[in-house]
């Protein structure tokens, strides 16, 4: 990681106290800014934002090449860092390295570790590891129930106090309506959202792919879309009952999106997220180009074109609040098995930004400003963390993005420990030029920052 900082213009930045980010297009929806602005950074804070700021003594200047976009640090609120317990897939160190390479200054990590993050000990362990790695910020998400077993609530107050920003039993739904009700009521005391993996388990059964034509043709057991939407409806009704904060994770089905719209129209405190693979891919990938590719197996599964298009429409019209990757690394050996036996999940941190640019911005589905809302403003709001803006006094968490950079996805070159991505070899337009966390540049693409967008 140090090598990228070597001779680049952002080279020895970590030693600099004050520096000026000049040029580049600053897009900061919270402060209604979109244009040529300079940012003055002092230590770990942004101290001034304005047009053509004067260069004072002792301030280093970083000229941002034309065409690059400067925005509040991106936040991925759905990431599996796998540590403690499954370090062969990923660690906090490698996961946060992948995050900053992907342009993310912060990630929220899921509690389905081994042991489960249902107590302060595990939470503090994760935070310690994050501090050691000193790359992206890590916001742990704690479990709703002890051991994620769905019986008793976990010690949620303790989790919050230790540093958790939300709770979830992700990997599974909250087991019963009663438990979900209690979770929503309880977390409302601490201003934390309950993040829900919507899945009616008896309908899901032993399914491995979306129940539709492609799964039928390939002889794969299906998971109907209603397995997701039924649970979403249950949870939204409970959110209305309790006035708790519900966030629906990795939404995949158009029926679920309709449920979210219904809930919002009735004033329920519900937000939702979509992963890049769910607005780019469909279940046709099960058969081609590689039949039974386990890098196309995730939960919730890739659905039909109509669902993918509904997600795009929701991203455009504001019904979808957040884009989050559900980064789920798995070791190569675990995925090199029969489709039935492969674990669900694909990586996402290092492909998200390129997919967002290529398939949302350049296709005209959303504006750059809206994309930034989806990738940082809204996640910060849902998680109630300090981020999502480039205000004076805010932490200097900055993402510098290159909307026109040509990126060829290479699984082998990724910083994540795992290679399970269906996008290997894809050529996309848009990428990451640099990532700054707390005033330190933790990732730099030399070519991009020197103005060669390749």
């Amino acid at each position: 990681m140090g090598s990228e900082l070597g001779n680049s213009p952002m080279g020895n930045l970590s030693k600099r106290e004050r520096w000026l980010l000049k040029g580049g297009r600053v897009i900061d929806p919270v402060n209604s800014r979109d244009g040529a602005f300079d940012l003055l950074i002092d230590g770990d804070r942004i101290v001034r934002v304005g047009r053509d700021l004067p260069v004072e003594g002792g301030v280093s200047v970083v000229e941002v090449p034309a065409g690059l976009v400067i925005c509040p640090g991106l936040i991925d609120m759905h990431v599996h860092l796998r540590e403690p317990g499954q370090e062969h897939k990923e660690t906090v160190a490698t996961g946060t390295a992948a995050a900053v390479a992907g342009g993310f200054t912060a990630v929220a990590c899921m509690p389905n570790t081994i042991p489960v993050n249902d107590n302060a000990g595990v939470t503090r362990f994760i935070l310690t590891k994050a501090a050691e790695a000193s790359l992206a910020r890590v916001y742990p998400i704690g479990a709703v129930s002890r051991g994620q077993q769905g019986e008793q609530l976990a010690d949620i107050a303790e989790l919050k106090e230790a540093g958790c920003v939300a709770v979830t039993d992700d990997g599974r739904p909250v087991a019963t309506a009663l438990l979900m009700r209690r979770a929503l009521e309880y977390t409302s005391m601490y201003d934390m959202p309950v993040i829900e993996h919507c899945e009616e388990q008896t309908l899901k059964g032993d399914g491995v792919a979306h129940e539709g034509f492609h799964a039928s043709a390939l002889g794969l057991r299906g998971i109907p879309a209603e397995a997701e939407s039924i649970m979403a409806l249950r949870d939204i009704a409970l959110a209305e009952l309790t006035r708790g904060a519900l966030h629906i994770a990795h939404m995949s089905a158009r029926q679920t999106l309709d449920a979210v719209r219904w809930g919002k129209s009735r004033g329920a405190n519900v937000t939702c997220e979509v992963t890049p693979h769910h607005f780019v891919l469909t279940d046709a990938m099960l058969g081609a180009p590689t039949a039974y590719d386990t890098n196309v197996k995730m939960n919730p599964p890739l659905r039909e074109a109509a669902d993918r298009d509904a997600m795009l429409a929701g991203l455009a019209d504001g019904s979808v609040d957040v884009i989050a990757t559900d980064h789920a690394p798995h070791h190569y050996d675990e995925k090199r098995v029969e489709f039935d036996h492969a674990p669900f999940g694909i990586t996402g941190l290092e492909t998200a930004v390129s997919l967002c640019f290529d398939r949302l911005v350049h296709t005209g589905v959303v504006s750059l400003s809206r994309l930034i809302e989806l990738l940082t403003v809204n996640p910060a709001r849902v998680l109630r963390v300090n981020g999502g803006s480039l205000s004076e006094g805010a932490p200097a968490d900055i993402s510098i993005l290159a909307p026109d950079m040509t990126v060829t996805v290479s699984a082998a070159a990724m910083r994540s420990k795992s290679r399970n991505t269906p996008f290997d070899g894809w050529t996309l337009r848009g990428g990451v030029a640099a990532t700054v966390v707390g005033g330190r540049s933790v990732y730099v693409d030399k070519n991009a920052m020197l103005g060669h967008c390749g």
Partner: protein
Amino acid sequence: MKKDLLSINDLTRDDIYLILDTAEAMREVGERPIKKVPTLRGRTIVNLFYEPSTRTRTSFEIAEKRLSADTLNIAVATSSVLKGETLVDTALNIEAMAPDMIVLRHASSGAGHLLSRICRSRIINAGDGMHEHPTQALLDAFTIREHKKRLDGLKVAIVGDLLHSRVLRSNVLLLTTLGACVWVSGPATLVPRGMDQLGIRVTTSVDEAVADADVIMMLRIQQERMQGAYFPSIREYFTTFGMTRERVARAKPDVIIMHPGPMNRGVEIASDVADGPYSVILQQVANGVAVRMAVLYLLAGEPEVAD
């Protein structure tokens, strides 16, 4: 032809006819006093069966031996799979001994596709999960052609557990490719999504399906399906979907009754139908050897050079 036979989709119409025509010649070998030709002498074929099977495995073994190939049968017990080697490791270990072909039967759909990406040996799919069983469909087509002299324009009714049947999927693909009019029928709980997009007629009325049919093909019903609440009881299944003499009477007078086996008498098919004059079930088994000989022979040459 492609390197592997994993699905009927790997075969063009011409390939299918070539296999059927070659099977005719292969059948004659089985009628000689010395049922052997030296064609695959020195070739090694591994029968890697992860699911128990008497019929298919024996059929392949006889076919291989009639072509003078060296056969190796590996029957993998389920428990050793769960405890031990992955499919990929097993296959790579076998590959190290340089077999020419691997005939694979496995409980997971797509197992053959996984191996074909890893192995240089030719892979013949002898049944993968719920996906396909190509040689079964080929021998079914061979049997139909033997009796009806053609396939295009025939009404073929396939009845039973459509959802879990690999025989169904292969047969639908093959029969539609050759121009037959395919009707499938089963309880609504056992109809896979999207069936109607395959160019066939789907009905939950077995009487409608078999009306004026030239061919009736019965699929096995697994007794365990009652646990998954797919239908209430064997008794009710037999009454509503079982092939009885009365139902057979709705078909054409020269209808043929087929079944891939093994049969559940009194569940999907009545005994008097299975043993009756229209049944060609045992001929299917006999034809299986000739068809598999044809497939082994045709796949044993060098694969066509791809551009």
